[in-house]
C-alpha cells in the first residue's frame, strides 16, 4: 500500500491504518528501536507505542515521507525508554555514537552568555547545510551513524564497505563538521 493511502486511512480513522502502517514499516521501526534498545521485547513495545503516536499525530500531521516520520517517532520513544529505564543493556552502538558527537561537541567553542549560545534550531539548520554539501554516500553514512545510531559494522554491511573504511570516513566527517560549524561561528 502506498504511503498516501496509509495516511488517508489515518485520516479516515480506519482501524486498518495501523495494521497497514505496521505491515509496511513494522520491520523498519522494530529495527530502529532494537538498534537503540538492544532488547527485542522493549523494541516491540516501542513499535507499539510508535503506532499509537502515529495514530495521535495523524491527523493533523500529514507526514511525507511516512518512513522518516515513523522512524522519528520510534527513535524518540526508544530514547525516552532508555532514559526511563536507565537500561543496563544499552546499545554499544548508541553509546559510541553519543560519545563521538560528545567529543566533537567538547571541542567546539562555548558561548560566554546564554544569549550567545546557538539554539537547537540554529544548530540543526547548520547541520543540514553541512549535510547538503556532502556527497550522498557520506551523507547517508552520517545519518545512519548519528541519527539511527547504527553500528559501524552494520553500516559497512549495508553500504558494502569495509568496517575500517567506514570508521575512518566517519572520523573525517566529524572533523569536517567541526570545521564547518566553527566557520559558521557556532557557540554552544
Amino acid at each position, binding site marked *: *500500500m502506498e504511503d498516501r493511502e496509509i495516511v488517508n486511512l489515518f485520516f*479516515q*480513522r*480506519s*482501524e*486498518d491504518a*495501523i*495494521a497497514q502502517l*505496521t*505491515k509496511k514499516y513494522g*520491520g*523498519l521501526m*522494530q*529495527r530502529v528501536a*532494537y538498534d537503540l534498545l538492544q532488547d*527485542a521485547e522493549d*523494541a*516491540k513495545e516501542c*513499535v*507499539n507505542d510508535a*503506532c*499509537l*503516536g502515529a495514530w*495521535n*499525530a495523524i491527523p*493533523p*500531521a*500529514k*507526514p511525507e*515521507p511516512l*518512513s*522518516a*516520520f515513523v*522512524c522519528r517517532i520510534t*527513535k*524518540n*520513544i526508544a530514547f525516552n525508554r532508555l*532514559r526511563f529505564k*536507565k*537500561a543496563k543493556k544499552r546499545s554499544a552502538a548508541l*553509546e559510541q555514537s*553519543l560519545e563521538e*558527537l*560528545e567529543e566533537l*561537541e567538547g571541542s*567546539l567553542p562555548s558561548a560566554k552568555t546564554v544569549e550567545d549560545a*546557538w539554539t*537547537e534550531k540554529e*544548530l540543526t539548520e547548520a*547541520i543540514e547545510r553541512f549535510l547538503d554539501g556532502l556527497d*550522498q554516500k557520506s*551523507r*547517508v553514512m552520517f*545519518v545512519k551513524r548519528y*541519527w539511527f545510531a547504527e553500528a559501524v559494522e*552494520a553500516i559497512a*554491511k*549495508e*553500504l558494502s564497505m569495509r568496517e575500517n573504511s567506514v570508521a575512518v570516513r566517519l572520523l573525517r566527517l566529524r572533523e569536517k563538521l567541526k570545521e564547518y560549524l566553527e566557520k559558521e561561528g557556532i557557540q*554552544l
Partner: protein
Amino acid sequence: MKEPGKLWNGVGKIADRYLEEALEYNKSSESKTLEGKTSAFGRRKSWRTWVVLTACTFLALVGGIFTWKMALGKGGENDGELQGQQVTDLLQADEVWYVDAHTLLAGKEGDIPLEKKRGDQESSGNAALDAEGDETEAGRKPYVTLKWAYQSFGMEEITRATVREINRKLKEDGYSFGIQFLPIKTTNGTDSEDRSYQEKLFQCGADIAFTGFYSPEEHYTQKAIRAGKYEPLDAYLKDSAYYEQIPEVLWDCASYQDQIYFFPNEIAQDAGLTLYLRKSSFTREEAEDFCGDLLSLEQYFLDGKRFLNCQSDYQFAEAFGYSYYMGVLLTEDGKTVNPLEEENCVQWMRLLNEYQEQVVQSNVADWDFALSRSFPGTDIGDGNHPEDFYAYQWKGYAVPRLNCQTGILASSANKQEAFQFLELLHTDASYAKLLLYGKEALDQGGSLKCSYASQLIFGLDTGLVTKRQGDSLRHFSTAEEKRNYYEKWILPSPALTLKYPEACDAMLPAEEYYSRLLYTEDFDALLKKAREKARGYMQQVNKGIR
C-alpha cells in the same frame, strides 16, 4: 545512560528528507538486513504480531479513555439532550492496568464476570438445537471437531499443546465437541492476500470464521452475508445468557439487515467526544461555564488560548447531536445529511479557520484546550496527565461494525456446537484464558503470550475478558457495570437502521475538504467547491443505503 548533548539533539532534528535518503539508499539490501535481525528477535513473525497488537491497542485506547473516572461530576447529563457530562476533573483510574502473570493466572484479576453457572451453559443456547431435534445431553451425541478459520499473521500464538489442552478440558467438562484451528496465512499482508483470504475462508470447511482484517470499505463481509455465507445467530441467542450480558446496542453493531451475525467486537464503540481544558489555563468556574456548545469555544480563542484539534473528519459534529458514520452525518430520525451543508458544522470549521494560528498541529506542542475521542496526552513525550485537565464528555454513538468479527459459517454442519463453543469462551474465564494466553503460560505462570491479537481474532475483546499488561481496553468488573455504562454513555447510531450502511463510504472522499477548509485562505470559495463535490457523493450515499 549518557544524556545526549546539543549536537546529538541537533542531528536528531534534521529534516525527514535526510532520513528518507538514508532509508532508500540501500533499500535493496534491507530485506537481507531484516532477516539478519530476525534471529535476534527470535522469530520472523514477531513484528507481524504487533501489526494486530498495535491495531488493537490504538482501538483499545480510543475505548479505554473512559476508564479515567469522571469524578466530582456536578450535574450529570442534561436530560433529553444529546449533551454530555458537566465539566469534571479527570483522575487517574484506580484500576490497575498492569497485572502480573501470576496474579492474572491465579484468577485474582480480570476474570470474566460470570453471571451464570456451568449448568446454565449446558442448557443455554440450545433452542435451535432442540428445534432441530438433536440430542442435547452431552456425551450421547457423536463427538465432532469444530474448525475455526482465521486470518493469520502468526500473532495468535496457538500451540498444539494449547489446542490439546482445550480439547482435553472440553471432554472433561462433558462437551461433545473439540476444536481445531485453521490459520489462513497472510505472510505479506498485501491487499490481494486479504482478498484471497476471503476466498479461502469459505472453501476450507470451517465452522467458525473470523471475517478478516481487510479495510471495511471493501464490504467483503456484507457481500458474504448477502450471499448467505454466514449463519444468522438470532435463534441461537434467543435463550443465551451471554446475550443478556452484552449491551443491546453492541448486538446491533454486529447485525446486518436486522439479523445478528457475530459475537460483538466493541472496539472503538465505547467513546464519544471529550473537550479537555488544561487546569493551568482555565479556572474551574470557567470550565464549568461550558455547557456543550462547541461554537461557544470562540471565547477561548478570543482569549488567545491554543487549541489541539484531534478531529480529522466531521466527527466533531457529534457535539451538535449528529451521528457520524463514514463521512456522513445522521440526524436523530435517521436522515443522512451533508456536513458541509449544516450551518453549525460550517460555523465550527470557519471558526477553526479564522483562528488557525491558535490551532496547534501536534500533541507535543503547548495547548490549552482540545477536542478528542481519546486522551490527547497519549502522544509521546508531552507529559500530559489526566489529572491536569477538566473534561466535558459527550455521549458517543455505536455504529455498524462487521469487520474483524467472529461468526459461524452457514455451511457448517455443526452450527449448534460452534455456537456453544463461542458462548463458552465468552462466559467461562478458564477457556478464555487458555485461548488467549496458551497452556504454557497457564502452566508456567511466566511471561504471558500476547493477548491483543487473540482478543481481536477470537472476538474476545468485549471488555469483560482478562486484562494483561498494556491492555488499555476499557475493563468492566461485571456485565452489569458494562451494560450500565453503555446505557448512560453510548447511543445507537441511526446508521444501524440503514439497510446498506456501507454505502455511506461514498462520502469519504469529501473528508479531504475538512482539513483543507481549516487552513484555506479563501474559506467561502473552497466551501462552495466542496459543497458541489459533496452533493454528488451524497447522492450516491442516499441511492445506496436503502
